[in-house]
């Protein structure tokens, strides 16, 4: 693994009128690293994810990304076409609500194949083969390939969303509460799956979650947010086992032990 960061955020701020979405955030993500962004509701996690993935325009600061050719590029200088190409090949975005990340009226195979067709795949047999391959990787039975996601359970939809995003072998995946709304046993399997894929593919992941257990399981490093600011950052185990900030201590201590 290289020591050059894949993504660098500097002085990132976002104001919604007079209210603060997030304030002066700086962070780095390295290839193959899972970074968890934790904090309570309204702490600016999702805003930060939106800024990093260029879905939101920052009020101040900038995000740079290392392209496949090794150049570090300020994302605000990318043209619309370049940005879209980046988003659909080099990045993935797994959303909390699968309906936002999937085409619900298109079959599972079509959902997985869409990115392949978007980058010029024009051979039906190959696309279908690849789709089957990916469905197997996310533990969806091959005979469900022609069913549309409306016929899928919540956990299956989430896994389908992951397959759809990973099919172009991205290097960076954004995840917004991927286990939200799933029951615990399904959550556990999904986390297992994500962990396996991340390790196998060497993905860098930025995962937003309010669930410290998810952060503990998946992430290497974590960032704790409060009132739009990053108040603590460090190795996941270190932050969770030995929190420095009073707020982090509160957060960690309020987790119910099963």
């Amino acid at each position, binding site marked *: 693994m290289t020591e050059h960061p894949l993504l660098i955020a500097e002085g990132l701020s976002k104001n919604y009128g007079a209210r603060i979405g997030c304030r002066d955030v700086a962070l780095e993500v390295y290839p193959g690293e899972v970074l968890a962004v934790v904090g309570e509701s309204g702490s600016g996690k999702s805003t930060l994810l939106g800024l990093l993935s260029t879905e939101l325009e920052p009020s101040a600061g900038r995000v740079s990304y290392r392209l496949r050719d090794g150049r570090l590029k300020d994302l605000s200088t990318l043209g619309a076409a370049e940005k879209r190409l980046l988003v659909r090949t080099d990045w993935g975005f797994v959303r909390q609500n699968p309906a936002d990340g999937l085409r619900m009226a298109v*079959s599972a*195979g079509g959902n997985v194949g869409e*990115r392949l*067709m978007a980058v010029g795949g024009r051979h039906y047999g190959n696309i279908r083969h690849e789709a089957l391959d990916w469905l197997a990787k996310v533990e969806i039975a091959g005979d469900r390939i022609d069913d549309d996601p409306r016929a899928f359970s919540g956990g299956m939809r989430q896994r389908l969303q992951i397959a759809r995003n990973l099919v172009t072998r991205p290097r960076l995946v954004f995840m917004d509460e991927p286990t939200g709304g799933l029951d615990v046993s399904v959550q556990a399997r999904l986390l297992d799956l994500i962990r396996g894929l991340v390790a196998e593919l060497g993905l860098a992941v930025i995962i937003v979650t309010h669930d410290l257990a998810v952060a503990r399981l998946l992430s290497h490093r974590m960032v704790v947010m409060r009132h739009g600011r990053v108040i603590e950052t460090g190795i996941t185990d270190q932050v969770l086992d030995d929190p420095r900030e009073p707020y982090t201590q509160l957060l960690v201590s309020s987790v119910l032990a099963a």
Partner: protein
Amino acid sequence: MNAHSVGTMPEITYNFAYLDEQTKRMIRRAILKAIAVPGYQVPFAAREMPMPYGWGTGGVQVTAAVLGPQDVLKVIDQGADDTTNAVAIRGFFEKTARVATTTSAVEATIIQTRHRVPETPLSENQILVYQVPIPEPLRFLEPRETETRQLHALAEYGLMHVKLYEDIARHGHIATTYAYPVEVAGRYVMDPSPIPKFDNPKLDDCPALQLFGAGREKRIYAIPPYTKVRSLDFEDHPFTVQRFAKPCALCAATGVYLDEVILDDKGGRMFVCSDTDYCNGRQAAGHRGEMAGEPPSSRPVRSAEPVSRDDGAPFSGDGPGLSRAMLSGMTIQGGDQP
């Protein structure tokens, strides 16, 4: 204002070809832009026309803007010259522009059409005007207009292939049989209006200028003469057109698009040319199909909306089901014996 409309004035007078000159100027500018950027949907300020949306308001406005007093106009409705839409629009321009009209695809200089391209090859001095209900080929895949415009601007047409993928996954073949998306001049993906995909190859390298007008959606687009038009497909599922097991029952033409006509309530049916002008021309030249000599009582009455085979499957193949169905129809025709 317009020299052409001077003459013996009727009680009610219209400007030549109904629209005022400023409106025609605006539409012509849109048409010029559309020709300059083949396949690109140019917005234009469509006017209210004295007919409901969906009856060809876009096509009529384009025709009105390109029509001159020397032009000869033909109007096609689903291939026929004698159905409601064709008769009404022909009458409209006879009244408002007093141009000559014809049913002959050879004599016409401007052909306004709904859902068909004439079987007769077109020439350089002709303009084909299509009526378009929904100009956006991506509409049913991506409902947001802002997004579809982005997709066109960036030539991101993966979505179009998702639709074709879905067709193959569900039906085993590309089941889209009309409004089949095409790529124009290697750039824009375009909806060729709801013509059967049988007609798609006629768009390619066509000597005539092809204009598309959508009145409700307020869009004009164009294919200039001799432009490359390619129907989208997959490498392992190439584009094919419908084939028909039998020739036309009236003029024995093969390799043309046929309409199915129901003859009775016992399963009797016949297949005849959808292009009435072409069929009449062949019959006049002495070609006879197997049902051409029937007494008038058993001659089919062409309905305004012949049963469409746009949904695809059972009529276009040469499967045994088709032959049987047709044979039973013929038997009933032949003797009316049980």
